[in-house]
């Protein structure tokens, strides 16, 4: 077994926990504070005082609170380097009752709270802007029940996605969500942002897969909607309030998730194509030919793959092409699924839709191929300052937006590139610059958001609005919708203590 392990380590850049491995925190971080960089006015909240800290110390004990702004870079700074707060207190509850006590106390004392999961948000949802109390969910990580008959799994919101997936796979199930940050992101955070991920085309989004939640309101009241049925029409579907609201309406503490059976067979193809037009034609063919087995369709442009090669030494297995597609199928019949994929690839090659490609059903090779796509986010961190965008756009405009930004930025950008979940029209547009300046930011925003609106797209597909996009909510939403959001926020959190400055324009 030792040699087997050595092979794995030497031949694969291990994808698990890449987020953790590449984080660099230091107490002397030079990063400027979000409040200064984005010119934010502090809300009408109280500052933390010694008696507040004593309350949390009495409630949680010495080992479950962290104090002192200089020790908390890991919690104050987001993974990408977009935002930095100055909280001097992190609290780590282990139970829903403790979350309730914390929020109740903060609400009474007008202390703002920033709920935090794995801190892998791309829009700075999970880091404070000022001195909010950081409510870290990392110790709420128990799996309460795995029902391998119904596929219902009940667990705490602080469970790490990869750990949960490992646990359910022992019972022949799979978590219907998969993303590059799986080694660090927590399910509570995934729900809060309604994360989409790589297999949404197959399993649908979290609004459909989450059967129930338990959440705590700003005043500490525990809302129990922890149902375990697919069908339950007893009044308003309150769980949906907490999915996608980024911790602004309540803190999710427990989740009931529908997990499908683990597929018995998996096939992957990594394909090289000469144009975006061919990408669309191949995607259409894949939908028709692969049908119910299709589980992921990802597109990358040449620049994306060059980036991962340059920064992480992850090479394309087929050399350079203008576009790449990753197509994955999963099913229950290995022979049938493989034949289906083989036939699709053979015809696509004959019809000149694809120029080249590799295909495999071997878990090790599947993992290696997925790394090229999954670790793009990690590669971005080594490429200067990157403006990351996450749009839902009609497929015919998917890449015109990237070309438009290339022209718009000219020599001001280091590189402009795009990749994303073609299967659900989700483009990740990236603009990489040598360093962040106000001038460049103003050149990109709101220009890029307005262009998305012009093509009837959404300015946030799966990352949420967070802090970075909050002020642009009205670009994508009708004013009446934003107005209703404010009403809802005021009802659920009248003092506005939950994740202030996020989602709704501040």
């Amino acid at each position, binding site marked *: 077994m030792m040699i087997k392990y050595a092979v*794995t380590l030497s031949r694969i850049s291990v994808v698990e926990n890449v987020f953790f491995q590449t984080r660099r925190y230091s107490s002397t971080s030079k990063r400027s504070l979000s409040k200064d960089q984005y010119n934010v006015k502090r809300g009408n909240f109280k500052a933390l005082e010694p008696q507040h800290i004593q309350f949390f110390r009495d409630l949680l004990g010495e080992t479950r609170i962290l104090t002192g702004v200089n020790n908390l870079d890991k919690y104050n700074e987001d993974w990408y380097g977009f935002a930095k707060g100055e909280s001097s207190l992190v609290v780590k509850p282990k139970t829903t009752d403790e979350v309730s006590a914390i929020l109740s106390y903060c609400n009474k004392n007008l202390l703002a709270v920033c709920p935090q999961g794995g801190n892998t948000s791309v829009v700075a949802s999970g880091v404070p802007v000022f001195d909010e109390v950081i409510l870290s969910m990392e110790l709420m990580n128990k799996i309460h029940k795995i029902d391998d008959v119904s596929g219902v799994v009940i667990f705490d919101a602080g469970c790490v996605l990869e750990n949960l997936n490992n646990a359910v796979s022992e019972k022949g199930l799979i978590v219907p969500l998969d993303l590059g940050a799986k080694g660090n992101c927590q399910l509570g955070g995934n729900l809060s942002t309604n994360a989409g991920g790589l297999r949404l085309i197959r399993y649908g989004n979290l609004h459909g897969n989450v059967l129930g939640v338990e959440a705590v309101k700003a005043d500490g009241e525990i809302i129990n909607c922890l149902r375990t049925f697919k069908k339950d029409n007893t009044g308003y579907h309150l769980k949906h309030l907490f999915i996608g609201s980024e911790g602004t309406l309540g803190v999710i503490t427990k989740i009931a998730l529908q997990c499908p059976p683990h597929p018995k067979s998996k096939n992957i193809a990594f394909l090289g194509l000469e144009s975006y037009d061919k990408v669309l034609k191949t995607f259409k063919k894949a939908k028709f030919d692969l049908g119910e087995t299709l589980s992921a369709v990802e597109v990358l442009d040449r620049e994306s793959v060059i980036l991962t090669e340059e920064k992480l030494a992850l090479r394309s297995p087929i050399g350079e092409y203008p576009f790449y597609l990753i197509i994955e199928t999963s099913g229950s019949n290995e022979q049938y699924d493989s034949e289906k994929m083989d036939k699709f*690839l053979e015809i696509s090659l004959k019809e000149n839709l694809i120029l*080249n490609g590799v295909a495999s059903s071997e*878990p090790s090779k599947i993992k290696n191929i997925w790394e090229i796509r999954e670790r793009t986010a990690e590669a971005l961190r080594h490429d200067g300052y990157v403006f990351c965008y996450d749009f839902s756009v009609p497929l015919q405009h998917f890449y015109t937006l990237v070309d438009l930004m290339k022209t718009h930025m000219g020599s001001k950008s280091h590189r402009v590139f795009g990749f994303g979940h073609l299967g659900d029209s989700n483009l990740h547009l990236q603009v990489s610059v040598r360093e962040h300046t106000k001038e460049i930011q103003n050149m990109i925003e709101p220009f890029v958001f307005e262009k998305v609106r012009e093509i009837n797209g959404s300015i946030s597909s799966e990352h949420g609005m967070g802090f970075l996009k909050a002020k642009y909510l009205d670009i994508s939403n009708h004013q009446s919708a934003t107005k209703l959001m404010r009403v809802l926020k005021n009802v659920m959190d009248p003092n506005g203590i939950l994740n202030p400055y996020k989602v709704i324009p501040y």
Partner: protein
Amino acid sequence: MARILVGVKRVIDYAVKIRVKPDKTGVVTDGVKHSMNPFDEIAVEEAVRLKEKKIASEIIAVSCGPAQSQDVIRTALAMGVDKGIHVEVSGKEYETLQPIHVSKILAKIAQNEKCDMVILGKQAIDDDANQTAQMTAAVLDWPQAVFASKIEKGENEITVTREIDGGLETIKCKLPAVISADLRLNEPRYATLPNIMKAKKKPITKTTPKDLGVDVAPRIKIVSVEDPPVRQAGVILPDVDALVAKLKEGGHVP
């Protein structure tokens, strides 16, 4: 130009979690994904590179095992191997197939095919034996260069850099020879779609140990296969004093 024989073994894929059978007679293989042994992939890649450099004229891949072993032969063919030989061994016979048997099979095929180079993976990741290359060289009475991280062909000889405990060792040996591939010899290519299509037309010959005159009766018996002991979970301690106390309690410090 050299004719090269490569050995390709079908093993449980290295990304799969290994499970021991409840009766401890072996590991669970039913319904478990298999692939080519990673060291054998390196051996195939090296052979293909030698052919691309016009040092080799033909490459033959051999796999001993059940019908599914043809999958790894097909992979080798798609990587650039010219033809495959499937030595059919199945059922109980396959479960007890050992390096001594495989080396005799490979030696016989190397002679039949008039090969002057045999390149094998240094070991298989399932049994970790690291014996087949050495035994094949002994059966053929050919020189051996094992744990190769670099191969250079000269006039009727090869220069091989070997990975040894103390660092690297460079040796020269006459051809014909047996080489075993180490991890750093190369980075194997993926079989591309056009080559996968072409591989379907390449020939795979079937034979048996009996046809080759090799007796595969088991020489050793596996008594028991067990999981490695589970590592105990750590504990988080509040301070240094508690840590020292814990270490003393466990007898780790005086």
